[in-house]
């Protein structure tokens, strides 16, 4: 069974990190894995610096090369032609969707989106001030047209501790109850591997993250 997943959510919630790690976890399972940078505002500053590194690890990465295009910033950017056909590819397809709610409006640019089984997963970091409380997160997620699952990605970067992760689990689980959308996973920096089993305190599966984004130089 091949997966088609889109990682969406608040700006800087951890979409790229979760999408990269998810895609890499699928490599070696006998199916090709495609990772697509679907950020039409700042495509050059998310997956771009990591493209070669990720390709070397066996991912088929669909992202602009810097010199192939122009950085238009606030004026938006052009969809990479291969991205338009990404959902028609064989194997697993993971979409990294930039820029919050507006980013998800780019789904209609993808051929076959309507009939695809694309799972839309919203990444939530409860340590982000705009999504720090249950009502704020619920309000924010209701602005999305459709969400299939939640990823609790609560952390403070280098200053993350177990307390913020556990607090995130409680907050996101409550959001899940209110919205009727399941928690697909809690994602945790791999340095906390010893503190977690397969599940968090609410029984949600735990995914361990290797942090690639700090290499993106910002």
């Amino acid at each position: 069974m091949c997966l088609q997943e889109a990682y969406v959510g608040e700006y800087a919630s951890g979409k790229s990190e979760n999408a990269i790690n998810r895609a890499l976890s699928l490599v070696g399972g006998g199916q090709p894995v495609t990772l697509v940078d679907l950020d039409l505002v700042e495509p050059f500053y998310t997956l771009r610096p990591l493209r070669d590194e990720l390709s070397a690890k066996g991912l088929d990465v669909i992202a602009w090369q810097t010199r192939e295009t122009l950085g238009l910033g606030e004026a938006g950017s052009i969809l990479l032609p291969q991205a338009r056909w990404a959902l028609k590819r064989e194997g697993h397809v993971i979409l990294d969707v930039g820029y919050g709610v507006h980013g998800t409006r780019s789904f209609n640019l993808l051929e076959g989106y309507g009939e695809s089984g694309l799972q839309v997963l919203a990444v939530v970091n409860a340590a982000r001030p705009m999504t720090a409380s249950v009502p704020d997160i619920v309000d924010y997620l209701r602005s999305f047209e459709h969400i299939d699952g939640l990823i609790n990605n609560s952390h403070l970067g280098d200053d993350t501790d177990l307390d913020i992760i556990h607090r995130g689990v409680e907050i996101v689980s409550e959001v899940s109850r209110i919205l009727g959308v399941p928690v697909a996973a809690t994602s945790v920096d791999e340095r906390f591997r010893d503190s977690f089993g397969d599940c968090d305190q609410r029984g949600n599966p735990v995914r361990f993250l290797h942090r690639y984004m700090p290499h993106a130089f910002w």
Partner: protein
Amino acid sequence: MIESPIKDEQKVFVTGNEVIAWAALAAEADIMYGYPITPQNEIMHYWTRLAPKYGKKFLQTEDELSAGFTTLGGILAGRKAFSATAGPGTILFQESISMAEMMRIPMVVVVQQRGGPSTATVIYSQQEVNMVTFGGNGEGWRVVYSTSTHQELYDYTIKAFNTAWKYRFPTFILGDGYQAKMRESLVMYKPSARGIELVKPYTVLGGPGVPGRDRLAVHLRNTFSVEEELYEAVMPAQEEYEQMAVEVVEHDSQHTEGAEIIIIAHGVVSRAAIAAMNRLRNKGIKAGYFRPITLRPFPEQELRKAAGHCSNFLLVESALGQLARLVKEALFNVPVERFDTIYKPGVGITAEELVEAIEKNRKVEH
């Protein structure tokens, strides 16, 4: 009464642009005027998401000329107003900033530097130092805080409003695209909880009563009929700028005493400078570091003092000598043994390249 957005101290994970929006709320700013430009857009995005919740306002203007002058208008009406811009936007702001210098209007502008000249690139450089420090037609009566971390973006944004309203010179937060987009943790706090008293804004124009009958008329001038009249206006303002300079100037330095080399950097590049200094010191190389926090007024005396301990410098910046110009001016007439530079306009600088450059130079010497 709308409750304060920031209650207890709170550790959060944020981008730099968001920090500015939250810090402006903490500083009790009333309104932001602005025109979109990367890499500062999210300051506007987050301010407009937060503003309605806390009774604050936002006006998107038709361009940066208008953003600058509407900011001045808001301030004259007694509101704590601010704006944010970058690159070509900073060029268009110069006219209103010059007016703020001449009329002594407490304007606060956040500049997230992008590449130049012209439209150039949308994210990073340190090429707006010239323009932010001395960009207008005048004498550079500005206060410029060059930040290097998210915590500093927060602390100095609060401070910038106080400096501007206390001394009435336009005040800048000089960040850059990396700081704008970068993600790291921040402790948000209420200024009063840290003993910081916010300077209250006051109405300059349009106060109650009839001017000349109920109160003195306000006559702000940026135009003078004759040169002598201008001279008489400029000289006292210059004196006040110099008096203020002693009170607001800030720098950071480490291990300059006994150093064999001092790395000079500002803004986000100073993070690489500190990391390089620490790595070199671990290898037994006596490296020090000096960073101007205020680029205007410049910590001249403090740098000259450091040069008294060690006159061997490596200056690094993501521009072609804009910081170097300020540094050389400050070091005028001080004997300098060696002044190496690494200029990388538009490009980030890492600790590794600084360590490598210093070790290479030492090998050549020995």
